[in-house]
């Protein structure tokens, strides 16, 4: 019974849907404020029903399968992408008592499930039979290879520090001291996160002004809804991962609760949106150069720093 509740309601399908609706609304509202606008306003209180309407519309609108594509590949990819993007929620410790799958290897599962997503998006672009989608697919593959290296290395640093891959025990062992030790790792994780989630300045794969909408170009209706759902579910997995690994997860100053985790996730989202509103996109070459000559070496240095900190600050290998 618990399992069914977990899958359908929290932290499963309904929770992800609610998160998608709410975060989509929050993004638009926050972006509008930075733009000196109001944002969605007339549907529901402060426009809060607007994104519900948007997503419901997408769900029920006609889904076009263009001529000349493989219909199976074209339609199954969004479904697969959405499903896989939702899986990491099972590994995250949402509250002190709620982790759906508590495993010794949860961290590995998390980074692998997050890391597999761009492959699926590449296949959506590949299967669209559109020049722009194909270019978008190639770009996402290139970006994934260069960004995920440092993402993995940064995500590993808490495991190295605490000597465990169990997310629950990582959260429980975290202290103010460990927060500051992991802070460089967090910054690296955050930069890699921007690349992984295709956010400015790394929104190269779906660059509107260059390649229309990248791999999204041919998708409409339900398929596009699924891709959007996958995107927002991935946001959740990555934000929750960051909060759990580096910021102490559900632990707060006065009480341990889900809301502490939620506030941390929203703070990361706000940070991301502010960068989005003030930074132009960089090019593929600059991204590759940045990733391989700065980000990856820094991530390796960060691991060395964690080792030294563990030995000299926290008092040796346990």
């Amino acid at each position, binding site marked *: 019974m618990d399992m069914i509740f977990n899958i359908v309601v929290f932290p499963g399908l309904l929770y992800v849907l609610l998160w998608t609706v709410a975060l989509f609304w929050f993004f638009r509202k926050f972006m509008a404020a930075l733009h000196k*606008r109001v944002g969605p*306003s*007339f549907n529901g209180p402060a426009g809060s029903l607007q994104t519900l309407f948007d997503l419901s519309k997408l769900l029920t609108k006609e889904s076009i399968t263009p001529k000349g594509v493989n219909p199976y590949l074209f339609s199954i990819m969004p479904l697969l992408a959405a499903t896989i993007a939702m899986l990491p929620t099972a590994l995250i410790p949402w509250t002190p008592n709620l982790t759906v799958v508590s495993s010794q290897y949860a961290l590995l599962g998390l980074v692998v499930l997050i890391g597999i997503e761009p492959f699926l998006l590449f296949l959506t672009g590949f299967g669209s039979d559109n020049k722009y989608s194909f270019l978008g697919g190639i770009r996402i593959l290139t970006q994934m290879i260069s960004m995920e290296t440092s993402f993995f290395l940064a995500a590993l640093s808490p495991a190295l520090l605490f000597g465990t891959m169990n997310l629950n025990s990582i959260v429980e062992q975290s202290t103010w001291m460990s927060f500051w030790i992991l802070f460089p790792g967090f910054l690296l994780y955050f930069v890699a996160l921007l690349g992984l989630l295709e956010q400015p300045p790394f929104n190269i794969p779906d660059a509107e002004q260059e390649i229309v909408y990248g791999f999204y170009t041919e998708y409409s209706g339900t398929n596009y809804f699924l891709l959007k759902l996958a995107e927002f579910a991935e946001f959740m997995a990555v934000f929750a991962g960051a909060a759990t690994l580096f910021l102490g997860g559900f632990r707060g100053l006065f009480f341990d609760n889900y809301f502490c985790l939620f506030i941390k996730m929203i703070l990361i989202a706000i940070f991301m949106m502010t960068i989005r509103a003030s930074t132009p996109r960089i090019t593929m070459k600059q991204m590759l150069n940045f990733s391989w000559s700065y980000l990856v070496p820094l991530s390796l240095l960060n691991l060395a720093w964690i080792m030294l900190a563990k030995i000299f600050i926290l008092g040796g290998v346990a």
Partner: protein
Amino acid sequence: MLKVFDFFAHAKSESLWMAHFCTGCCSLEMAAAMGPRYDWERYGFLPTPTPRQADILIITGLVTKKMLPALLRTYAQMPEPKYVLALGACSFDGGPYNDSLAVIKNPTEILPADVFVAGCPPKPEAIISGMEEIKKKMKAGIPSAASEGGLWKEMRF
């Protein structure tokens, strides 16, 4: 069952995304309608980069002969249900370019528009109110004019 159906129809009418396509000068005022003072996102309008995700095609003013095939193609690429909004005098009868023979004087006879917005160019408020008219039309369940008729069905593009 009927209730659920109603909700989705309401959702469709309240969330109008428009295809990013500009045929003429009125797109400048359309940009102003997106801007801080008029901000049409308040009503739930959003530009999308590709016609595949759009609900409304906006004929922004004049349509030249060279532009017409692109306009019709964009319309054909959009998923159902789709509506057309015609901005400005040009899309009604050629407007100030009525004497110019490079401009099509009756683009809305070819691709019938659901709502016309008058002006050259129409003010941003007028554009938003035109979009609201389309919402009303969708709520009343009136099918779009272009699906009912128009020369575009007989044309090659």
